[in-house]
């Protein structure tokens, strides 16, 4: 399944995951953590960095490649 829209969507998702990871690292985000008083949540950061990498990889896979444009066709 390849489409530019899907690729852009996955890229944006990757950026969102990165931001969430940074927020967990600085303790700004305290959602679903075992210790809400901790100043850092590195486990969550690692998870969201992995999710971001996976999203960027998926975006690159979803990007249409090798498109032959009409203008590329040889003229007769």
């Amino acid at each position, binding site marked *: 399944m390849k489409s530019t829209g899907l690729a852009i969507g996955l890229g944006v998702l990757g950026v969102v995951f990165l931001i969430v990871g940074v927020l967990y690292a600085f303790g700004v985000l305290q959602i679903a953590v075992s210790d809400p008083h901790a100043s850092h949540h590195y486990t969550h950061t690692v998870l969201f960095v992995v999710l971001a990498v996976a999203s960027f*990889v998926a975006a*690159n896979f979803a990007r249409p*490649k090798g498109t032959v444009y009409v203008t590329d066709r040889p003229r007769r």
Partner: protein
Amino acid sequence: MPVTWAQALFMGLLQGATELFPVSSLGHAVLIPSLLHWSFKQSDPSFLPFLVLLHLGTATALLVLYRQDWLAIIRGFFTAAFRGQIQTDTERLAMLLLVGTIPAAILGVYLQTRIKSLFASPYEAAVFLVINGGLMIGFELLRRRAELRAAVTAASRAEQEEHFAQAERISFRAAAIVGACQALAFLPGISRSGVTIGGGLLAGLRHQEAARFSFLLATPTILGAGIVEVPQLFSSGVPVAEYLAGAVLSGVAAYASARFLLRYFRSGRLDPYGIYCIAAGLVSLALLHFSL
């Protein structure tokens, strides 16, 4: 009470040997200290650095065992990721491992602490060990049915296994399901390698390839879980020498058990481990019940 040298070495050996065998390392680590009336608890926060080091020992052993594979997988991952296309079996395996690791990582981060604290008693570990045994036998029953359905006839078990697929041929959906199954191992008594090998068998892999996929899948999960807890090692009062010795022994035992299992699964099945788990679980329940 701090861990003694003998306890550290014993726990290292136990963790390394049972982490890769389909018999649940966590189940044994909860049950055996309790049966031996040792005073420390696995769930105690002061025990965490020791567990971290033991897991890092196991992960290091797996990295050493599969060092060539991991170099190829990492190279394959970056090549496929930048190209945006899979062209070789190694690139496919790299992406399968990524897909398999993500559900385990999500479930691990959000559920592990809650599940472990809910089911941390030796009684529950013994019951789950029996269930794990039932699962192993169930996986093999389903596999035998698949062999009958495919009308696999061969002179030997090794030849029979060749009718099934290599790890690189597993589907992405199956890799995600097998990866998610790792979360079952947060229940003490349920084996991570057991459920992932079983999942691989259901997906049509050879026993040896299911074990290889399970060990490869385990490496980033165990390593990741260990590395994020490394700062705990530098807290005061940690008996570093004892813990390090236990970790080294854990690595050696994990390396030896992985080599043994890969050879065993050329023709062997999960049933003996299933029978062992049921027997060990029932004996432990009896010992705990009668406070022996």
